Every structure is written in structure tokens, then in C-alpha cells.
């Protein structure tokens, strides 16, 4: 494994950083306070081509590869991880399954505009009673002549209400359990497809999370994604990739917390010297950076495996498990270093601590990651 990045990867990383500093940073705190999903700003971001990074040119992609994509997710997330998860959920959870399992027509119709930043995407798997147990799906799709009729609801959907394209899982053959789940592409605006309430969340408030509601929603038969009954496999493979993205988001959050903490510790004086000169603080910083670097290396390994076409499910789960736990710990420590100011909304570290928590939960809870890792070890 080569730890030297290509000029192209570094250039894309810099583009993400320049955009974040120029356009996201000035308003991130205010957007977070107001739980504002700023669509024009997100459109500006995806038009840079961030959703196009991992996909090939024939579908509007850039062909720059998965590692460059993951580096961009981390970079944007350092400054505004709500924005990071917005384009990451779109590319990883909607773009990827269409790319990997879609027909040529589906790729041209749905993946191309997503790559070009004309649309954003979303992914609907979770339901009120089907979280870690995805097989407990109650959303159903029934074939009626040339159309599938979908009924049910999907909960906690990132980009819900804003995305133009949705990859949605539904039962087509309940007795077959997970083998009875199929994947569908549903367009926003389809009659019978509406949105429930917007979630009020602990963090990632610059992103939007909504419920998807299907009431006799009829979609053309050709919007079946992959084969009938292949939905669970599509969902699991999609989440394998999505986990690397969430791990990168966590890594960006952790690095941001460290950068803020280092700056503060050098500036804040107590007992006549900067608190960074106290070994108690300096050693905390050393641990924080070491753990974050370790997380980053796990992430890059998983991304490299995916980019080079090797199996990566276990390594993606390890990266997500470790990076999210590190993000939670590092952000909590950053708040501690800031002391009372850290608990105040005047400083950014409390936001990072609130945002870190979700990375331990979504794209499969960390307990599910341990199931994935141990199952791969023990098979």
C-alpha cells in the first residue's frame, strides 16, 4: 500500500477545503443553530463534482477513485459535517447502488444527473421497527400490471424531502424474509410519495432528516433496481461502502476538534502559562491525534481496498467502528480542554461533540459493526 497520495487526490482534497473555508465556514454555526438545510449552498457544493468523484466518466463521474472521494468527505466534514453527510449519503447510498446494480438506462437517467450535481439522492431502508434488524421491513411493493405499488414508511432518511432520487427497500415476497426484499428507484414528486415530519436531532443539524411515506405510490416496473429479491444484498453492499464515508465524516469531526483544541490550548493561559504547557493537557492532545491518525489509516485502507476491487466489508466496518468511537472520545476531550467555554455555544467544539454521536449509530450501529467484523473472522 502506497501512502503517497497522487497529485489528483491532493488537488481534489484542496478543492474541498477551499470550498469549505470560503462557503461553509462563514455560516456553519448559524445554520446549525437554526437547523437550516441550505439547499442553494448544498447545490453549489455538489456542482463542484463531489458526488462525481468515485464514478466513471461515462456516467458523468470524474473517475478519480474512491480514496479521493473519501478524502473529500473527510475534508468537508472537518468544517461542516452536516454538509459532508449530505453529499456522502447521496453518492454512497443512492449513487453507488444505482452504479453497481442498475441498468444502463437507470445509470444514465439517475446516476448521471447525480454526478453532475443536478440532483441529490437518498436511501430508504430503516423503518420504525426495522433498524438493525433490516429483515423486519413492513413496506411492501406489489406488482400491478406494469407498475409496482409501494405502501409503507421509511424513518430517519438523510436528504429526505430534498433529494430528487430515492433508493427504497420494500418487501416483494414476505415469506422469503431477507430474500423477499427488493430495491426500487423512486423519484420525488411521484403521486403517493410524500414526506413526514422533519426530525429534530441532537446534531448534524445542517443536514436534513425526514420520514418517507408511501401510500399507493405507483412506480414503473423498470424502476426495480437489480433483480427481484436482491434488495437485502444491495442494501448490505451499499452500507459496506457507506460505512467508509461515515468513518471519514467521523475522522473529519475528530480532526476539527483537535485543531480547535490545539489552538485554544496554546492561547488559553492559567497559572501564568498556556494550558498546553501543562502535561495533563499536552498528553490529552497526543492521545487525540494518535487515535485520529490510527482511525484515518483504517479508513484509507478500507477505501484503497474498495478502489482496487478487493473485499472490504470487514475493513469498512472496522474503520467505521473505530473512527466513530475515536470521534466521540476526541470531541468529548476537546470540550474538556475548552472547559466552560467548551460547553458554550460560542465555541465550535460542543457542536462537534453533538455531531460525533451519530457516527456511532448510523450506517449500522457500532454493535452491528462488531457483528460484521466477528462474523468475517469466524466464518
Amino acid at each position, binding site marked *: 500500500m502506497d501512502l503517497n497520495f497522487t497529485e*489528483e487526490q491532493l*488537488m*481534489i482534497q484542496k*478543492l474541498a477545503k477551499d470550498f469549505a473555508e*470560503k462557503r461553509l465556514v462563514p455560516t456553519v454555526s448559524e445554520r446549525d443553530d437554526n437547523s437550516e438545510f441550505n439547499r442553494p449552498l448544498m447545490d453549489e457544493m455538489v*456542482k*463542484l*463534482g463531489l458526488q462525481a468523484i468515485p464514478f466513471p466518466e461515462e456516467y458523468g463521474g*470524474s473517475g*478519480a477513485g474512491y480514496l479521493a472521494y473519501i478524502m473529500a468527505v473527510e475534508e468537508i466534514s472537518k468544517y461542516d459535517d452536516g454538509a459532508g453527510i449530505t453529499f456522502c449519503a447521496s453518492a454512497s447510498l443512492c449513487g453507488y447502488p444505482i452504479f453497481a446494480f442498475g441498468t444502463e438506462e437507470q445509470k444514465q437517467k439517475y446516476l448521471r444527473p447525480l454526478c453532475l450535481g443536478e440532483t441529490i439522492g437518498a436511501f430508504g431502508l430503516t423503518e420504525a421497527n426495522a433498524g438493525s434488524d433490516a429483515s423486519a421491513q413492513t413496506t411492501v411493493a406489489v406488482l400491478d400490471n406494469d407498475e409496482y405499488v409501494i405502501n409503507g414508511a421509511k424513518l430517519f432518511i438523510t436528504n429526505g424531502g430534498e433529494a430528487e432520487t430515492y433508493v427504497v427497500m420494500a418487501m416483494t415476497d414476505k415469506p422469503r424474509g431477507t430474500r423477499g426484499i427488493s430495491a426500487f428507484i423512486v423519484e420525488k414528486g411521484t403521486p403517493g410519495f410524500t414526506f413526514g415530519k422533519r426530525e429534530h436531532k441532537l446534531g448534524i443539524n445542517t443536514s436534513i432528516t425526514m420520514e418517507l411515506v408511501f401510500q399507493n405510490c405507483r412506480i414503473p416496473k423498470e424502476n426495480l433496481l437489480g433483480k427481484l429479491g436482491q434488495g437485502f444484498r444491495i442494501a448490505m453492499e451499499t452500507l459496506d461502502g457507506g460505512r467508509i464515508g461515515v468513518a471519514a465524516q467521523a475522522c473529519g469531526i475528530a480532526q476539527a476538534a483537535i485543531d480547535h483544541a490545539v489552538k485554544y490550548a496554546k492561547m488559553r493561559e492559567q497559572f501564568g502559562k498556556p494550558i498546553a504547557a501543562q502535561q495533563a493537557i499536552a498528553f490529552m492532545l497526543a492521545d487525540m491525534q494518535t487515535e485520529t491518525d490510527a482511525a484515518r489509516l483504517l479508513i484509507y485502507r478500507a477505501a484503497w481496498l474498495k478502489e482496487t476491487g478487493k473485499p472490504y466489508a470487514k475493513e469498512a466496518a472496522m474503520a467505521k467502528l473505530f473512527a466513530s468511537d475515536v470521534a466521540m472520545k476526541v470531541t468529548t476531550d476537546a470540550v474538556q480542554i475548552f472547559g466552560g467555554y467548551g460547553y458554550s455555544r460560542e465555541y465550535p467544539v460542543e457542536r462537534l461533540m453533538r455531531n460525533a454521536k451519530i457516527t456511532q449509530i448510523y450506517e449500522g450501529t457500532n454493535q452491528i459493526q462488531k457483528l460484521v467484523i466477528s462474523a468475517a473472522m469466524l466464518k
Partner: protein
Amino acid sequence: MNIIVCIKQVPDTTEVKIDPVTNTLIRQGVPSIVNPFDKNAVEAAIQLRELHGGKVTILSMGPPQAKDALKECIVMGADEAVLVSDRAFGGADTLATSYTLAAAIRALGKFDIILCGKQAIDGDTAQVGPEIAEYLNMPQVTYAAKIELVNEKTLRVHREQDDCYEVIEAQMPVMITAVKSLNEPRLGTVWGCVRACRGEIKLLTAADMPVNYDRLGLKGSPTQVRQIFTPEARGLGKIISGIPAAEAAEQLAQMLCKSIG
């Protein structure tokens, strides 16, 4: 519309440091960037292409590392980039530089518009653009704050003056220099990054152009820099504002009288 934009790679510093012994800029440890006004010129070229079609070529004279600056313009969306580089060009003043760039432009073909930044932030001469226009015997409009196409032969340019805009129409081919208020340069795209890294940057050397070697580089440079120094910092000036001009003038006169004593 065929547009060529001349850019310069400059040190990224607002506070240029000078070696007191050699009287040259200290470039070590200072990252290089595309001269900011040149980025306005590149942005203007891309916008014109988006509106009217055509091609945007970026041209720079400099050492091999100036390729990085050219790549930055490809990231923004320029179609191709050409580096003019040769040991014979070393030590060029603005006259030798514009002579060389004009020769390169002639060698590259016909262009409707030549765009430059109004000046480079390191040398601050604002001479190279106008000199290129002279060498190529074409009209020039400097300090452009707005550029629009009137018809397929004519451009209308708003020239930024201290207290007004001068609106000028010029026949193409024309050389235009850009000011900061012309536009907000874009960051570029991921596709641009890929094109910049995978595409070729064309190289032109002295042998590739019909040039008189006596007019190149140090040999062709009548200007000699005798001394560069950092002026001593002056105290802050005082601005009288928020009152009618007549009152302000009176206040100013009183202050001046007092200072004379």
C-alpha cells in the same frame, strides 16, 4: 471565440520580503499562487466562453514549476495550457517578457481576445499586457471591470477609473487587462482537477518561436533593478468623514496649521 489568457505565477504573500544583499525577492518558504488579477482574467475568459462558445488557452512564461499555476487554471475550467519556458528567457524584464509572450501567441495561432491581469502583485508594473498589445499591433483596453460582446466583432468594456467608469468599444482582436471587481474567480471542479493532472501542458521553448535571441531574457532587458527596499512604515493617516465637505476641509486646514505650528 478564441481567447488566450496570460498568467504569472507569483509568491503568495502580501508582505513581500526582500533579500537586502541581492535585492531580490526571497521566494524560499513562500508558496506560489496564480497572480490574483490573472485569475479574474481567467474567470472572464471562461464566462465569455460559456456565453458565446469557443476555447480558452492559458499562457505563462516561467520556470517548469509554473506548470502548477497553469494547472490551477485548468481546474477552473480552461481548455488548455501552454508553458513558455527556456533558460534563454531567464532574467527578463517586462519588455523581454512581453516580446516573448507576443512571439508565443503568434506561434499559437489567431486569438480574438488576449486577457491579462491588470498587474502582477510581485512586480506591480502593469506593463506586460499593454506591451503585448503593442507587439501584436492590436487595440488595448486596460482595467476592465465589465466585458460584454456587442456583436461578433466588437467588445464593450467598462474601464475602472478612480471616480468613474469609462465605457469603450473595441474591435477584436483586442488585449484587455482585468481588475479585481470584474468578477469573483471560481474555485473549479473535480473534473477540472482530473483534467489538470491527466492532461498535457504544451511546452514552447525559444526554438519553437521565430525570435531574435538578443531580445530575450537578461540580454533583452533594458531595465535593471538597482535597489529594492521595504519603505519604513508610516503612521496611520487620519480620515475626516461623516461631515459635509466644506466643514471637513476647514477641519483639515486647521489640523495642518496646527501641525506646522
